[in-house]
């Protein structure tokens, strides 16, 4: 009996590696510390009432960003472990299996659990404020989206200590990921189920923001008067809505191969491993634009604000994003040019890929012309935006090199490719979310991040990024392929790899400075008493920082683009409108169901990972009960009375 239990626990928990034990200990200590702190300060009630049950888009946005920063730390540690292993030839820091697991979790976490939630966090905070709305279209659904993402991420991360991580890469290509070559299934199931749960949340966020932007804009704000960030989220939402269903199906089919013995992507039984690549990238390529278009929007806002000019080429910006949204669904094959497609197929997708560089290039020129003759103010957000332009362009240009199908036979799966997509995803997405984080931080918390520390973290991170990824292009051309856990001496790769590793550590240092900046500023940061610390142009800066629960005491009337800049201009000229009396504001009620339902999804998912149907099926029944319970809730909103609005507005100095 005891032997059986011992054997079970030996399989259940990941054992044998000191680093894993270290992780076990730190997870246990962190959990105990959280529980003790919350109990000591009697904060459980506060946590439940203010955060776990909230449907307020601003709080949900903050929770998204906290989760994304934690996941960025985890993904970053993965990167540093990999780079340490590759620093010198014939290193024994990680073994092959462990290395495979780490590059898999690094990729999955960075795309699904860092880039997406970071962007969702920023859009939750900024979009309703930019369009003059009091919340999103479906606040309850918004909370559900967040908790599904959160529990999906937790389930995926659990694989590290319980059961073992997936090791087939973030693309989980068949047949290696399939049951024939991966018979234990547990690690792969974590991937399919964890990503699936958070993917359902992403799809719902897409629908939520599309409807919010389409239907809830302030009176007078026509589509072509919307701020550019809102435009980028509208287009992003459209891509999410139509790309994610394919991913849902793809992950489910992969899971069924393991659980039900189906033959979708297997070698035997008539399955087709190539079908996995085809379906995966039908989602995967639009996904690239899902994480890039929002940061294009952020850069547009930031560059216009700190160049003190209106954005150049507004209409062409919009048109190029619409073009990207259509083209992004027509280029997916360029991820597997080398899989043996016919020449016409490769030629078509080669052309469509090059075509998509055109609208992207148009945007680059628009930003440059916005800067032209502007009065440029070098704040931290602006530095991130300015650094984005050249660094991202390098990623874009190497992308066009990879788009040529015959040349791709040389570049494919080399370190050149790795350098290319890090140039787009770090110089684009990561610079962008850092830029947005510094830019909207005062709106979230009511104080600014320290500029000096911000600039330090920018320079360290940006220079290290180049030290890390510029040599990597050459390493690829020298013949090193991706996903090699080590390499022999004497190929000339050693020195280049060593430089790259220095860059990787440098980026870690940049991130630590940023984390320190957040801690320092929380204690000593400059308060934002005006609500408009940057001289902003859009409506989110017209209200106090942090925004009150109801956002706008009066819904603003919009007559032009850059609505808040125009309002400030009117005020200067003494054409300010007289304040009207307040009216009670209709707000949605908090609900605990999203949290409980997502937790039950987690339980069900954990059961299916281990094929414990006794746990998985009751979990899903619990989810269904939550849905039915919600269907019978009719008392789902309340009104904020006028005297409370008046008190809040007076406290922020908005009433004299």
């Amino acid at each position, binding site marked *: 009996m005891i032997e059986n239990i011992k054997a079970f626990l030996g399989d259940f928990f990941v054992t044998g590696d000191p680093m894993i034990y270290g992780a076990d200990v730190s997870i246990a200590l962190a959990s105990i510390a959280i529980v003790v702190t919350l109990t000591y300060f009697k904060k459980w009630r506060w946590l439940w009432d203010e955060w776990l049950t909230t449907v307020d888009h601003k709080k949900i946005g903050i929770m998204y960003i906290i989760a994304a920063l934690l996941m960025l730390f985890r993904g970053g540690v993965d990167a540093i472990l990999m780079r340490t292993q590759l620093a010198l030839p014939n290193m024994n820091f990680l073994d092959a299996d462990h290395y495979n697991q780490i590059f898999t979790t690094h990729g999955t976490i960075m795309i699904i659990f860092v880039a997406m939630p970071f962007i969702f966090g920023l859009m939750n905070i900024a979009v309703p404020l930019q369009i003059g709305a009091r919340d999103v279209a479906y606040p309850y659904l918004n909370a559900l989206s967040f908790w599904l993402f959160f529990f999906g991420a937790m389930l995926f991360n659990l694989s590290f200590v319980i059961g073992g991580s997936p090791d087939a890469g973030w693309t989980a290509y068949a047949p290696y990921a399939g049951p024939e070559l991966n018979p234990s299934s547990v690690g792969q199931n974590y991937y399919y189920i964890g990503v699936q749960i958070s993917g359902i949340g992403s799809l719902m966020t897409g629908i939520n923001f599309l409807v919010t932007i389409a239907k809830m804009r302030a009176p007078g704000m026509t589509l072509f008067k919307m701020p550019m960030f809102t435009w980028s989220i509208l287009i992003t939402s459209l891509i999410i809505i139509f790309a994610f*269903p394919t991913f849902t*199906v793809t992950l489910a089919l992969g899971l069924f191969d393991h659980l039900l013995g*189906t*033959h*979708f992507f297997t070698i035997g*039984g*008539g399955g*087709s491993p190539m079908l996995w690549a085809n*379906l995966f990238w039908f989602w995967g390529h639009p996904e690239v634009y899902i994480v890039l278009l929002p940061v294009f929007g952020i850069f547009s806002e930031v560059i216009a604000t700190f160049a003190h000019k209106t954005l150049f080429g507004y209409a062409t910006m919009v048109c190029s994003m619409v073009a990207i949204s259509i083209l992004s669904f027509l280029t997916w094959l360029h991820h597997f040019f080398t899989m043996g497609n016919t020449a016409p197929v490769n030629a078509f997708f080669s052309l469509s890929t090059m075509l998509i560089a055109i609208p992207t290039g148009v945007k680059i020129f628009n930003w440059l012309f916005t800067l032209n003759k502007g009065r440029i103010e070098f704040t931290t957000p602006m530095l991130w935006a300015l650094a984005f332009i050249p660094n991202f362009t390098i990623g874009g240009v190497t992308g066009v090199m990879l788009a040529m199908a015959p040349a791709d036979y040389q570049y494919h799966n080399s370190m050149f490719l790795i350098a290319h997509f890090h140039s787009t995803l770090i110089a684009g997405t990561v610079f962008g979310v850092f830029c947005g984080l510094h830019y909207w931080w005062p709106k979230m918390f009511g104080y600014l991040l320290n500029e000096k520390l911000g600039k330090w973290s920018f320079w360290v991170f940006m220079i290290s990024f180049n030290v890390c990824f510029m040599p990597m292009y050459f390493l690829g051309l020298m013949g090193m392929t991706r996903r090699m856990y080590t390499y022999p001496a004497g190929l000339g790769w050693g020195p280049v790899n060593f430089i790259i590793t220095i860059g990787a550590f440098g980026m870690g240092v940049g991130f630590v400075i940023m984390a320190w900046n957040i801690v320092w500023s929380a204690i000593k940061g400059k308060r934002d008493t005006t609500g408009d610390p940057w001289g902003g142009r859009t409506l989110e800066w017209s209200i106090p920082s942090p925004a009150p629960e109801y956002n706008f005491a009066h819904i603003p009337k919009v007559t032009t683009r850059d609505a808040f800049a125009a309002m400030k201009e009117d005020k200067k000229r003494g054409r300010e409108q007289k304040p009207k009396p307040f009216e009670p504001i209709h707000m949605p009620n908090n609900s605990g169901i999203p949290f409980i339902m997502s937790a039950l999804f987690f339980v069900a998912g954990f059961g299916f990972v281990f094929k414990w149907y006794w746990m998985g099926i009751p979990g899903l029944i619990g989810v269904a009960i939550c849905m039915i319970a919600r269907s019978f809730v*009719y008392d789902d909103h309340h009104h904020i009375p006028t005297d409370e609005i008046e008190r809040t507005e007076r406290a922020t100095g908005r009433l004299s």
Partner: protein
Amino acid sequence: MAASSLSDSDKRKNMPLEYTTEEGDLRIVGFWIFMASDLVLFSTLFATYLILQGSIGNGPSAKDLFEIGPVMAETIVLLVSSFTCGLGTLELRRHNTKGLIFWFVVTLILGLIFLGLEINEFYVYSVQEGAPIHLSAFLSGFYILLGTHGAHVTLGIFWVICIVIQLAQRGVTPVTARKAFMAGLYWHFLDVVWIFIYTAVYLTGMVI
């Protein structure tokens, strides 16, 4: 999406009950967008099925397996249920709670008959004909495509049951009207998906 002279709230005053609140209006639009995305979900399953249709391994082919009788029975039941559901929406527009509940219950019964027929079909294929899901890629694609549609129908049945209870409790109000209308849209949508299953799976399978 161009600016029109009337604001949304002005337009809503002259619309059917389910659109009269802002919440109802938003949710109906959102539900359309959801259905559009579900369209892509099914298109992925169709693409997968069509690619794997010929990969029969050691199992039977579509021609060996399919029988037209049960398929036509399922198709007719679902088409008629879409019709009765449409009559329910018509009664909703007449603010007739009893008529709405009656037609929704009829739709539910037809939905259950459809599910029964489909489960029986699965049972016949997988047990009696010896063609279970794990035998070949073709069978995997077939069962998962039809199973996903069947799961949607099952969800729809639970949803309509909840709505019928709420209609009996509250009558036709802006909120229950919105729920009933959306459930109706969903039911018609599932009928549309079935039309393509009928065409691309059964008829195509018997032709090729």
